[in-house]
């Protein structure tokens, strides 16, 4: 029962994130869009550590890839790595500090986007690196850092709720 509820909670969060990101964010923000899924992944890594971040990154990246329909699997991989790095960094930082989610979100964003640009090239999608850095990676680092700070308290509460459910076998 606890497992099903856990899956339902995670699925609801990820689906909501992908819907908001593909509709509201792409409509409201011109140019580089904030990446809500990345903020969720970085927050999950920060809340639950290495493997939680990785798992959420894989699942969230898959949903994004399914909507994008191109280079399916690449966002999954870059997002999972971003989740892993967030979880890894989180172990060394005091997560109650309000600046920590900003730093983690920004770092995860930079890693995710740079990995994507470089790896996409290997698959024949040439994305100009300098223009990407100026017009996408840098603004996104800023947006996603702030977005992670906003998202983290909610993800942290949900994570604690899931841990409580599992410990009490509810």
């Amino acid at each position, binding site marked *: 029962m606890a497992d099903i509820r856990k899956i339902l909670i995670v699925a609801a969060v990820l689906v909501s994130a*992908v819907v908001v*990101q*593909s*509709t509201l*964010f*792409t*409509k409201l923000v*011109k*140019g*580089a*869009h904030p*990446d809500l*899924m990345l903020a969720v992944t970085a927050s999950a890594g920060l809340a639950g550590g290495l493997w939680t971040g990785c798992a959420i990154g894989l699942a969230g990246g898959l949903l*994004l890839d399914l*909507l*994008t*329909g*191109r280079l399916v699997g690449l*966002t999954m991989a870059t997002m999972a790595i971003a989740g892993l790095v967030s979880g890894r960094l989180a172990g060394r930082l005091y997560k109650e500090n309000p600046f920590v989610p900003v730093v983690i979100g920004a770092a995860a964003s930079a890693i995710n*986007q740079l990995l*994507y*640009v470089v790896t*996409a090239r290997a698959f024949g*999608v*040439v*994305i*100009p690196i300098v*223009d*990407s850095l100026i*017009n*996408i990676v840098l603004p*996104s680092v800023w947006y996603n850092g702030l977005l992670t700070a906003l998202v983290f308290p909610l993800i942290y509460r949900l994570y604690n709720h899931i841990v409580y459910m599992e410990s009490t076998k509810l």
Partner: protein
Amino acid sequence: MGPGKWRWAVLGPIILIIAGIIVATTGPRDELGWAEKAFREALAPLQSGVTRIADGIVGVTTRIVRLTRLAKENEALRKEVEELRTERAALLEAQRENEELRRLVDLERRAPDQVQIAEVIYRTPGNWFSTIIINKGSAHNVEKGMAVVTPEGVVGHVRLVTRHTAEVMLITDTKSALGGRVYRTNQVVLVEGQGDAGRGKALVKPLASEADLVVGDYIITSGLSEIYPKGLPVGIVEAVYEGRYGLTTYGQLQPFVEFDRLEWVAVLTKPHARFGEEVYGGHP
């Protein structure tokens, strides 16, 4: 003399004195009496202070009452202004959407049975690909490879189709390349997308070695590809650069379509060969 009679003996003269004073002060008087003067003079400062305090209290009370009323009125007016603003914004939005749809319907009217109007459901998430998803698919005769336009010009082409949706690759996508023509010189060019990293612009690459490309040149579709009919407006050249060693020239294109504001598009399901001329008059 008993006590009762003594009292009457005192009271009698008092009554007479009072009566006398009344009579004396009933008629017109030139001056106040000394007692009146002294009493008035002694009381005046106290009265003045008390009157000032009372005036203050009345003033404050009146002001509070007035302010409360004004605050209520202000609140009501503010609410009304807010409602009117929201209503105005909704009306402007509806007007804009109406105008957009009117122009699309006009496009459909000028090219009957050649287009399918569709709404943009969402843009693909992420910053690397410039694609949109529309709410018409194979169930509405939308097929892969069909051109997508707005009354402003070319949007892109259908890349993938499901039964009720279709993915449109915008002309600004990094994988997009369309055959264009410089309207002024008739020279054939290639228009390549630069993605969001290129801020939604495209690159114009002349195919001839002797390129004549200047800022302000209009680019239209060449009609040489299987996707886009001839003469659809694409964009305007806003900068011209020289390539390495000065052997090549290329331009930066600002598309006519505002992709960030895209809400409705027309898919060219069965365009005639002269669609561009019929609908856009053959020129931008």
